[in-house]
């Protein structure tokens, strides 16, 4: 807390001195506030129980207040974070803490920019380094340190940074350093429309483990048999070479990344135990690679994107002992469509860091002013050829009139639930989901939207039921009264029982409704919402980073405000 106060005082001092020295330019002051509060209502039937919030806490809230001030090339920013009985860090637990979650001071000069504090940044597409914030998953891995950017010319820029990765209100011990050189080359004729441009870049990141972390890994491999032991190193280096080529309507991005041999836990490698028996999973020291490319075309009503990716041994964290979403330095782009409808988003694949080979094609064509179609195909395998994910997604958008718009399509998914959700012995989930979305504008300020999806799921022959939770029906009705009000009512109904459908006291499967009611009120830049939610357990993903969220039952209030 004392540390936090020191940051605030430092920022205030700098702010006042800047104001005094530049009385004529008043600068600009910006801010934002976000809060989400939950009231937990125990519902043991859907699995909303056995976490502190349902048993005793009953109420949880998390809030963020961002303040920023910009003056004379100075950029000052501070963010206050508060978690009170919050389930955001661990959906099965309660977390309470508060303080200064982030601050930075930046000065931009003609050629040089200097920034200290908490820094968000990335190299290339983020494969060797990405520091970012993703609040729904409580990922905030800003670098706590310093960064210099020097502009060599109008086209070339050199960047270097060093620090430690943030975790909640402290930092992990290992240090991270990095540098990039990025440029822009225009090979076209300025007189012509079609330019050939290149945006090449080269980047490097070094992570140095603290001695304690090295010793801990050493402890773990100390008892390994001789042939599985390896020497320990404190430093790991990751390099990336990337380039974007633009020519007319074509754009091609390619990136190759290499990570030097480092210690990490590989759950698929065999470990020989002291008694000669074996088990799965051991520490190894191996190098890693990622190759990623994306080719896109947009023109004449046609939009095509083709992507490919190959990942091998690219587990890269602030400390190799960290797991799940913690300490990630790497961010490997997902290779599937970002679905938004309730049922089409139900089975989303998490990006695999050790072994993945994936392709995606997205084709969109606008036939005329009224009709647009889209097809997206994604396929993800392990490097050993194991089928992880398949998706075929089609969409048809038809603008019947100014008042009526129709959208509909079909999604087909194969999802390796055993791997993605660590559910033993379950078959590959197979779903077919037709959906429809109708928007009707009642008047200039009123509109009504209806959406519905039906999910048909495959059979789990071993269990004698349908897979996972079985079939689902989802329907939503939304009334918008611009500019202030919006009302949404929806229901997700488990129409046909699956293996995981809850059972009653007599052991009979219960086909349950999961209703949700939302009221949104917007007043200028403030948006309030109040919701009643009954939600089934499921995967929550953001950019290929996913976690399994337990069922939720209760009320939720949110406020998003910018000023």
């Amino acid at each position, binding site marked *: 807390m004392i540390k936090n106060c020191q940051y605030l005082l430092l920022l205030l001092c700098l702010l006042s001195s800047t104001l005094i020295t530049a009385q004529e330019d008043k600068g600009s002051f910006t801010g934002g506030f976000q809060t989400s509060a939950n009231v937990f209502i125990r519902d043991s039937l859907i699995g909303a129980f056995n976490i502190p919030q349902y048993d005793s806490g009953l109420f949880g809230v998390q809030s963020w207040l961002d303040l920023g001030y910009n003056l004379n090339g100075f950029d000052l920013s501070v963010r206050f974070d508060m978690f009170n009985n919050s389930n955001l860090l661990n959906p099965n637990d309660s977390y309470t803490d508060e303080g200064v979650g982030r601050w930075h001071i930046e000065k931009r000069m003609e050629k040089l920019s200097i920034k200290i504090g908490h820094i968000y940044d990335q190299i290339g597409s983020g494969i060797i380094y990405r520091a970012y914030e993703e609040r729904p998953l409580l990922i905030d891995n800003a670098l706590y340190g310093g960064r210099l950017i020097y502009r060599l010319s109008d086209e070339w820029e050199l960047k270097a940074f060093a620090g430690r990765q943030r*975790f909640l209100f*402290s930092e992990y011990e290992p240090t991270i350093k990095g540098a990039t050189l990025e440029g822009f080359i225009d090979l076209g004729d300025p007189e012509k429309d079609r330019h050939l441009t290149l945006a090449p870049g080269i980047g490097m990141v070094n992570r140095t483990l603290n001695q304690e972390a090295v010793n801990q890994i050493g402890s773990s491999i*100390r008892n390994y048999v001789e042939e599985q032991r390896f020497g320990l190193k404190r430093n790991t280096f990751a*390099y990336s070479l990337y380039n974007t080529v633009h020519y007319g309507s074509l754009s091609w991005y390619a990136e190759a990344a290499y990570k030097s041999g480092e210690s990490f836990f590989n759950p698929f490698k065999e*470990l020989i135990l002291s008694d000669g028996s074996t*088990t*799965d999973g051991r520490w190894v020291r191996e190098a890693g690679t990622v190759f990623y490319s994306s080719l896109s075309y947009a023109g004449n009503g046609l939009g095509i994107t083709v992507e490919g990716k190959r990942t091998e041994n690219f587990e890269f964290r602030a400390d190799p002992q960290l797991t799940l979403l913690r300490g990630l330095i790497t961010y490997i782009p997902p290779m599937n469509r970002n679905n938004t409808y309730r049922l089409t988003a139900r089975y989303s694949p998490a990006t695999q860091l050790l072994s993945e080979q994936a392709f995606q094609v997205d084709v969109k064509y606008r036939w005329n002013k009224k009709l647009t179609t889209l097809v997206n195909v994604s396929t993800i395998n392990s490097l050993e050829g194991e089928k992880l994910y398949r998706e075929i997604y089609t969409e048809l958008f038809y603008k019947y009139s100014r008042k009526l718009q129709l959208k509909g399509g079909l999604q087909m998914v194969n999802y390796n639930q055993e791997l993605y959700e660590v559910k033993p012995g379950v078959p590959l989930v197979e779903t077919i989901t037709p959906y429809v979305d109708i928007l009707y504008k009642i008047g200039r300020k009123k509109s009504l939207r209806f959406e519905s999806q039906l999910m048909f799921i495959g059979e789990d022959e071993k269990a004698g039921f349908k897979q996972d939770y079985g079939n689902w029906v989802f329907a939503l009705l939304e009334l918008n009264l611009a500019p202030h009000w919006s009302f949404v009512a929806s229901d997700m109904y488990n129409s046909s029982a699956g293996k995981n459908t809850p059972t009653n006291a007599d052991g009979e499967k219960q086909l349950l409704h999961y209703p949700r009611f939302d009221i949104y009120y917007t007043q200028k830049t403030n948006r309030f919402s109040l919701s009643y939610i009954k939600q089934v357990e499921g995967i929550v993903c953001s950019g290929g980073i996913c976690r399994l969220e337990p069922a939720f039952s209760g009320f939720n209030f949110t406020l998003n405000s910018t000023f």
Partner: protein
Amino acid sequence: MKNSIIYLFGLLLVLYSCNEIETPIPGPIEVPDGRVIMIEELTGVSCTPCAAASAILNDILINADGAVVAYGIHGIFQSEPRTESKYDFRNPDAEELELFLREFGKPAASFNRTESSTGSLVEPQPASWQASVDQELVKPQVADIVIISTYDEATRRVDIDVTVRSIESIPGPINLVVAISESNLIDPQSSPSGDILDFKHKHVLKKLLTSITGDPIASSGLSSGESVPGTYSYTIPEEFNGEWIPENMEITAFITADDRNGEIQQAAQIHVIE
């Protein structure tokens, strides 16, 4: 000129990653004589990675040569029996303990109930369990625990006498936890390659004879050399289907100190029938 900058930058990056001298693997740690630490393993027969975690734990127990004792908590998450299971290892004490130690997933293990830097009571990564053991083992021994078991074959009743003797003074309230576990239970365990039908489950927690945080045995701490007794009894259910065999059962006792964040100070484990 621009190309030169790129080449120079690339060269600098490569040079920067010159070979580093390897850090030698640390040798076995010095364990103070008599120091015994407690591992509470969160596991489950339907938890796929738990099979490997149990093997790692078993290896730790073998290598520790008595300095580490453990029981396995089959509580709520992924603890439901497999289709071919003969046994259901879940019980109310295990469920309560799992909620007390709670973690996002399994496997996970608590080492003397010490909090990690992230505030968690458990370490979720089995690959790092040996490191957690080492961190606890190097701490000085502050107490000694002696368990004496007297088993009556006719009544299947076991009388347990526990004596806690402090080696150095321990401030604040001290609590004693006594637990019954069973080993050598052959039953299916989920694993990445499918169910292992003849998996040997060890140290399965069956019953707590105290509360999960322990029965108070010294309200104002223990001074150096002071001893306190604890007496418990337990009637083992009738043998059924290869379960509840006294020869396979263990008694575990450990003390926690309220003024030290409830951390376990010392542990001991014996067989019901030695």
